[in-house]
């Protein structure tokens, strides 16, 4: 529970043993605690609705369906944790699928490995462009990747004349369809490998650098971090993740102009559901991926419950807002309770007469950083 060193330092003197155990648990889980709870609730609900859900092949099918979103969420996490957005991933997925079909139309005998590698490279190139425009030209990433989304979608449809045609050969679709060793779908394997790689990455120096960059760009810069390089690399990796998702989605459902539509928002939702702060510097990648699994579990559950397809998005909207809202509210209330009556809160709360209704929060509202994120325990906050 990374809620600022000042809060932790003063509070730890007063906490009781009971809260101490809670704290250590909360610290291990990080800001992602709510998402694990949500995931468990959803999985239990799934089991209750459909007793056969945990039969190995059905469960693996569920994981397989979740794989593209999990991979996208991992890529999106890298970008979000360093304080940026990537809205172009959905367009990269669409563009990847359509472009692969188009290339296969011209060269029907292209080997699938070459094609996959080519797609991953193209995804990296799109990410590189995003990163360079964001860092060198200092365009906010929301706009950069929004522009990239328009450009990619426009370019792909311009190229194909509005209706993507052609089909993907079986050996290319194998990664999305077939299984390894007879039981393990390749998509699950790809998802697992990507997950392990990204966890290792976040434990490496680069990962720490990335989080530091998102937390405070200036402090990271002064500490010798090559801020721009870290950000560009994050965008590149997000592009690669999107391309990998494109290979999987192409394998699942073939060529479609709608292949990646909406994935960018789903990925961001998954990451935020995982307790990762938009604006950077907080949250773990495992929680982000758990967020993606939760989202997929939610979709599956709604399907099983027979909620009409139309209302599905309503339920999704309510749950997303509620989950994020509860996550935000719980932590602030917990911190408030750790101050026994009589102890002054950590930070002097200046409340102008008649202003700011509601109980005072222990930490003042964050200064508006370029990224509009409620960031608690910000380094620039006045310390007692």
């Amino acid at each position, binding site marked *: 529970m990374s809620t600022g060193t000042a809060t932790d330092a003063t509070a730890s003197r007063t906490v009781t043993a009971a809260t101490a155990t809670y704290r250590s648990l909360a610290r291990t889980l990080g800001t992602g605690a709510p998402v694990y709870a949500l995931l468990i609730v959803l999985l239990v609900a799934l089991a209750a609705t459909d007793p056969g859900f945990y039969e190995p092949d059905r469960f693996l099918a569920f994981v397989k369906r979740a794989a593209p979103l999990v991979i996208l969420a991992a890529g999106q996490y890298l970008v979000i944790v360093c304080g940026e957005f990537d809205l172009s991933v959905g367009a990269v997925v669409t563009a990847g699928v359509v472009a692969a079909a188009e290339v296969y139309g011209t060269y029907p005998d292209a080997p699938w490995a070459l094609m996959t590698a080519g797609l991953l490279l193209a995804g990296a190139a799109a990410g590189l462009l995003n990163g360079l425009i964001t860092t060198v030209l200092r365009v906010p990433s929301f706009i950069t990747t*929004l522009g990239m989304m328009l450009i990619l979608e426009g370019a792909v449809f311009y190229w194909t004349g509005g209706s993507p045609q052609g089909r993907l050969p079986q050996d290319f679709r194998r990664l999305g369809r077939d299984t390894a060793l007879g039981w393990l779908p390749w998509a699950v394997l790809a998802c697992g490998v990507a997950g392990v790689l990204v966890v290792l990455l976040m434990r490496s120096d680069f990962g720490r650098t990335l989080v530091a960059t998102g937390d405070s760009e200036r402090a990271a810069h002064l500490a010798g971090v090559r801020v721009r390089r870290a950000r560009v690399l994050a965008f590149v990796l997000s592009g690669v993740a999107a391309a990998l998702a494109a290979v999987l989605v192409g394998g699942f459902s073939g060529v479609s102009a709608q292949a990646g539509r909406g994935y960018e928002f789903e990925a961001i939702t998954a990451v935020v559901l995982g307790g990762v702060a938009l604006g950077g510097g907080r949250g773990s990648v495992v929680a982000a991926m758990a967020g993606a699994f939760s989202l997929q579990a939610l979709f599956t559950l709604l399907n099983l419950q027979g909620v009409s397809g139309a209302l599905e998005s309503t339920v999704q909207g309510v749950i997303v807002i509620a989950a994020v809202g509860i996550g935000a509210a719980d932590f602030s209330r917990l911190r408030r309770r750790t101050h026994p009556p009589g102890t002054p809160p950590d930070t002097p709360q200046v409340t*102008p007469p008649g202003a700011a209704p509601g109980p005072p929060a222990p930490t003042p509202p964050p200064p508006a950083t370029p990224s509009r994120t409620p960031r608690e325990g910000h380094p620039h906050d006045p310390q007692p």
Partner: protein
Amino acid sequence: MTGTALAPQPARAAAKSRAPRGRGRLADPAVGVWLAAGAVTALGWIVVAARGGDFLTLANVVGILQNCVALGLVAVGQTAVILTGSLDLSVAYLISLGTLVAATTMEDGSVVTGVLAVLALSAAVGLANGLIVTGLKVNAFIATLGTAFILRGWIEDNYTGPAGKVPASFQHLGYDRMGPVPVSLFLLLAVTAVLWLITRRTRFGHHLYATGGDEHAARLSGVRTRRTVIAAHVLCSLCVGAAALFLASRLGAGAPWAGTEARYDLESIAAVVLGGTVLAGGRGGVVGTLGGVLVLAVLDSVFNQLGVDPFFKNVVRGVVIIAAVALYARRGARRSA
């Protein structure tokens, strides 16, 4: 970044002090975007004329202005929200729902009840957005995305296709003209003028800028930042409601795709940013936004005249948006250096 920017500072500071006030005005994005709109128009005129066409015909100019109205209304509202450092992604679905509510209410009842119903719906959605952002402390991006999902489910559950019918008396708003000028343009100008007055001439407007510039500082100075953000969201949604009413009168019925097909959510944010409003809040204004909308509309019209592939238009749009913001970023960096 600061390190590299420090070195040439003396020279720049000297240049700055020498620069006359007019140049500072020119560097203001709001002025720049209007100049850009003029430049794009001139360029379009030259290109179209070279192809043997005539760009600046009365019909074409009126068409361009007419095309500005819907996006303009949304973007002006979006400006108010972005100025406070928030944003609204639910506008597209709110437009769709607005047209449906307008058309179905007007089918059975009077025009007035239809207008009131849409405005009430908009205000309620705006209030909900504002309360979720400030009360639940959900990031605006997620909060409004969530409301967008909720609205989408509502629309898909209740409407399968175009619904309702707008009476002929209400269609005057979409189709009538005063002389050559479409009536709807006056609606846009009126809404913009009201928002300009609110943002630039009232206490609430100053609070908007203060909240967006530095919420913490604004709060410590006695600004009720929560109320400000909520009010901005309500204001934005009311503008979106106006856009929905305009589209309903234009379409003659409500349509579930009215707002989503044109992607008013992302387009409006693009127009706002094109108009020089900073995405993080605190700087910019509705006048620049109107210029941004005009640039997009003129570009559209030029491409139509040239018969450019509609998909290629998106490519150019993306490039223009990125390039414009890159330009602003350069200027901003120079000023702060």
